[in-house]
């Protein structure tokens, strides 16, 4: 049970990435009786979605609709989940795929940890909580966040002072300071890459001076500020705890910009910015909310209506790309922008808090992970126009933002598609008797 390595028998599908796309693909395959190994780099599944406050355009509480999926995958008898495990590379040869993985030490034996958090309460060290995008505090040993799955403590070796308080506090003696990184290989019938996306640096555009002000924040930081269990319990600006009276959203702050090296559209920013503005108008009823945009891309089902509602709610939409942001007195920020629809004047506008819509960028390096070149945008190449989830490697499929920026619903559609392609691929290779989807691999049994 404390052996995190999978049993030697091969699995049908390795799904890389435990975000919404990976969870959906894993569930679609496991429900067809395939044995699935789901690998997640972070210490909990849930991906970006679990950290969001609400989702557009329905304004569902994000964790409320993510946790059931997480839980379904976590408890599924045919899905085995390995967290804190990174993909090193996929090797395809002679009709089989060998997935090389690296499991990072968490210094906790997940078989023994019962998630009681007594170690966390005993720990004397706190550091900026990555789940709260640095805004909150996290102890050096902690369950990553309240609805993390698995609910197991993880020790952060960079911040731990090795005082032993957690060892003394642990009722099940689960803490293992001698845990080491492990590398292992899994044989898989097929692989689905659902590795998601990253965000380019807030400081990418020097004219925005993001490094000079704590009040220039990322959209993910605002998600956390808006979340019911967020770092401050309410929306405050990070520099001094003030309730912001005027918040600006700067769209295309890291995409659609050749000078920043990201020519493509990040696709999700318009909608999440509108959503965040809407949520802010609920949280801060008297605040001025302004969205500076080039084009509002509310293209999905229900999105345009959502945008029109936001306008009707009094959120200001200003056509014009913000050219520079300068920190001014009282931790405020001054935005210089051409008000294109107000005679084309140039104005300096002051705001308490500025949210930069960062560009969505790839996290997976196809050359390293698969040995194939990336597409010109850096994401995985899509060589087949009919089977859009195929990659350049046979039997390796991809879904969601690994194939370019994508919102949740489009990721879910692609995850389903990747699961279907993988199922077809396995069926074509399986003996006729099991063509209808009966797995030849043994069901995995351990959740790690």
């Amino acid at each position, binding site marked *: 049970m404390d052996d995190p390595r999978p049993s030697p028998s091969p699995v049908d599908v390795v799904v890389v990435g435990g975000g919404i796309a990976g969870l959906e693909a894993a569930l679609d395959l496991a429900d067809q009786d395939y044995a699935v190994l789901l690998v997640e780099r972070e210490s909990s599944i849930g991906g970006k979605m679990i950290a969001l406050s609400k989702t557009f355009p329905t304004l569902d509480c994000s964790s409320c609709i993510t946790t059931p999926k997480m839980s379904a995958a976590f408890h599924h008898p045919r899905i085995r989940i390995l967290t804190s495990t990174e993909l090193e590379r996929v090797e395809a040869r002679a009709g089989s795929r060998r997935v090389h993985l690296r499991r990072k030490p968490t210094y906790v034996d997940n078989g023994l940890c019962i998630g009681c958090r007594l170690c966390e309460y005993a720990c004397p060290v706190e550091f900026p909580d990555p789940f709260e995008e640095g805004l909150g505090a996290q102890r050096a040993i902690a369950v990553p966040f309240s609805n993390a799955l698995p609910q197991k403590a993880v020790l952060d070796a960079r911040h731990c002072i090795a005082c032993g308080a957690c060892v003394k506090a642990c009722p099940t003696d689960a803490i293992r300071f001698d845990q080491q990184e492990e590398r292992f290989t899994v044989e898989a019938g097929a692989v689905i890459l659902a590795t998601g996306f990253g965000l380019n640096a807030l400081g990418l555009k020097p004219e925005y001076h993001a490094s000079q002000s704590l009040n220039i924040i990322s959209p993910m930081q605002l998600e956390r500020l808006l979340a019911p269990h967020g770092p401050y319990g309410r929306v405050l600006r990070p520099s*001094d705890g003030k309730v912001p009276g005027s918040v600006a959203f700067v769209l295309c702050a890291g995409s659609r910009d050749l000078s920043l090296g990201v020519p493509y559209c990040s696709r999700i920013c318009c909608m999440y910015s509108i959503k965040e503005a809407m949520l802010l108008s609920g949280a801060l009823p008297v605040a001025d909310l302004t969205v500076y945009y080039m084009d509002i891309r509310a293209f999905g089902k229900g999105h345009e209506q959502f945008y029109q509602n936001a306008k009707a709610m009094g959120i200001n939409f200003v056509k014009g790309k913000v050219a520079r942001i300068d920190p001014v007195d009282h931790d405020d920020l001054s935005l210089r922008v051409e008000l294109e629809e107000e005679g084309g004047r140039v104005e300096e506008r002051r705001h308490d808090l500025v949210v930069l819509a960062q560009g969505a960028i790839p996290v997976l390096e196809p050359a390293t992970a698969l040995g194939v070149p990336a597409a010109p945008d850096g994401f995985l190449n899509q060589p087949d126009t009919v089977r859009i989830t195929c990659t350049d490697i046979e039997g390796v499929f991809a879904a969601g933002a690994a194939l370019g920026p994508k919102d949740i619903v489009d990721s879910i559609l692609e995850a389903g598609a990747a699961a279907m392609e993988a199922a077809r691929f396995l069926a074509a290779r399986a003996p006729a008797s099991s063509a209808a989807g009966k797995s030849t691999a043994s069901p995995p049994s351990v959740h790690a």
Partner: protein
Amino acid sequence: MAALTEAHKAALKRFRELRKQKGGDPGKAAAQFRQERKAVESALKRGPATVPELARASGLPAHKVLWHLAGMRKYGTAQETAQDGDYPKYASTLSPAEAPAPAPAQP
């Protein structure tokens, strides 16, 4: 709870040594953290205050004070009480004599 066994001690020692080889030493940061946290806690002893007020009282930058308050709220040693203009006020949940003892947080 359990005491440290020899095996635990050996593992801790190896852990420290290995990290030293890699060149990481969080001791300094931890000491600074404790010092700052104490400053915020003692500033709070004078009664509920806003972040800028606590920053003045503790000599720490306002953003650090806010960060410490976030941690203290999470682990149950501070709470928001009232609002003073644009700034919420925070109070300690510890009795003046009480040493800072972490209370279980709620998920």
